[in-house]
């Protein structure tokens, strides 16, 4: 295995300046930082070398007789593809090699995020915060999409105001750099027109953002939906759930799950996805091996998911299982007051948690905003029925797999089967 690259000597031009000796200065080795799975500032391709498969001791004739009918019938799993261990003795066990390994191009600069670092910037760190809402919103108006057919500047009435408001909200404190951006991105923009700013009122423009019919949301698959809840009624027996009194809840904003998956994979950040799960193993100095856990794509649960999928007949594309990690919590929006939202987020476990957790990477996709039923709308229902609220006595059901099972039950049995058959039957 390669040793970590030696610290690069100082450039020869520098020591001429104010140098007492002609020695090359170098950073002490203890100050050099490197990733546990990476070299210093160099794409390492550490797992590119695949160890030749060990000769299986128990069935040595398996590989030499690939065409024998016995070997095709015995469903012994294929031997895992084992990579060479890196400098720490970590290696991977793949079932199927992925086409791309994102760690090949990951350097320490990709995982550092501080304004004082002089490391080369990472492209992912300059992302619009709006990209979590979808690909269309993420088209930064400051970069300028010259597509005049769609009103990209909605909900503002013209591009100039949109650029101005975007500049205003992009940072919280204004610096000289922001002033440069104001000139370059707003005033010097080709569609800037001073006439657009006649009767400009910042308060009114800020209110436009609060209007709930945001066209940009609709373009990105944000759906304003409503749900009907059937509520129980005391001392009244209904023949079916459909006859129970309903409570209609408006304004459920959510995004299509499939759109999120598509936009996540079409985004440049998908280059960091580990497309195949593997087992991370550690070859200890004493010769024993040990399993190393730490990422979603190295977990047994994910490997089981990969085994569960049925390959589509006639499809030679690389199959990727996208493990969606969903998180929802009611969130206070301000330090004071009761303004709150109840969002649900989706993260993708294919990405390393060290990358996913960087806030400026914006890897939590917004999925839905759950409405909170106010007591005022409940009071109507309470007049005609006494609602049994779900109480804590049901906490014994709270097993982690319970919800997963229920979702997969829905997926496999109730709706998916029928709809999938319908869609398959359709040409």
């Amino acid at each position, binding site marked *: 295995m390669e040793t970590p690259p030696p610290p690069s000597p100082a450039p020869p031009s520098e020591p001429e300046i104010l140098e007492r000796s002609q020695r090359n200065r170098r950073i002490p080795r203890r100050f050099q930082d490197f990733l546990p799975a990476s070299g210093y500032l160099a794409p390492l391709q550490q797992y590119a070398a695949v160890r030749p498969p060990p000769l299986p001791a128990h069935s040595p004739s398996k590989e030499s007789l690939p065409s024998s009918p016995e070997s095709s019938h015995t469903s012994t799993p294929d031997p895992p593809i084992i990579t060479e261990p890196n400098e720490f003795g970590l290696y991977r066990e793949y079932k199927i090699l992925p086409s791309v390994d994102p760690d090949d191009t990951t350097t320490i600069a990709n995982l550092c995020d501080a304004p004082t670092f002089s490391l080369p910037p990472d492209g992912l760190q300059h992302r619009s915060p709006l990209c979590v809402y979808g690909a269309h919103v993420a088209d930064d108006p400051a970069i300028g999409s010259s597509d005049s057919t769609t009103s990209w500047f909605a909900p503002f009435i013209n591009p100039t105001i949109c650029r101005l408001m975007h500049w205003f909200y992009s940072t919280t404190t204004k610096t000289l750099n922001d002033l440069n951006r104001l000139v370059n991105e707003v005033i010097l923009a080709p569609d800037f027109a001073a006439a657009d700013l006649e009767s400009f009122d910042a308060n009114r423009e800020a209110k436009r953002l609060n209007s709930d019919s945001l066209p940009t949301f609709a373009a990105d698959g944000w759906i304003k939906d409503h749900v009907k809840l059937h509520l129980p009624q005391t001392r009244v027996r209904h023949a079916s759930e459909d006859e129970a009194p309903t409570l209609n809840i408006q304004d459920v904003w959510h995004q299509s799950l499939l759109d999120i998956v*598509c936009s996540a994979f079409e985004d440049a950040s998908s280059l960091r996805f580990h497309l195949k799960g593997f087992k991370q193993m550690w070859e200890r100095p004493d010769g024993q091996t040990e399993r190393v856990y730490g990422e979603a794509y190295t977990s047994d649960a994910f490997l089981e998911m990969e085994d569960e*999928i049925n390959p589509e007949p006639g499809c030679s594309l690389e199959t*990727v299982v996208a493990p969606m990690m969903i998180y929802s919590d009611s969130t206070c929006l301000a330090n004071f007051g009761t303004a709150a939202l109840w969002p649900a987020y989706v993260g993708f476990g294919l990405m390393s948690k060290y990358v996913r957790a960087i806030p400026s990477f914006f890897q939590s996709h917004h999925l839905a905003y759950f409405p909170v039923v106010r007591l005022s709308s409940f009071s109507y229902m309470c007049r005609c029925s006494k609602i049994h609220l779900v109480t804590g006595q049901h906490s014994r059901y709270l097993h982690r797999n319970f919800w997963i099972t229920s979702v997969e039950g829905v997926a496999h049995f109730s709706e998916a089967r029928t709809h*999938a058959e319908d*869609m398959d039957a359709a040409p």
Partner: protein
Amino acid sequence: MQKIWMLLLDPEFMHAYVHGIVIECADGILHRVYPHFFTYSADYPEKYVRVCPRRLQYS
């Protein structure tokens, strides 16, 4: 909340759940992606709202 999840798990998604969906990734390579649920993390009050034990009890 379960009703909203019924909205989210629309037929299109369910088809992709079983059969996968072909997506052209950022590097221009087509992949067949199978979206699956890996975790759902939430705090305690949300968990029992989410699993909705009463409804499943009767079903």
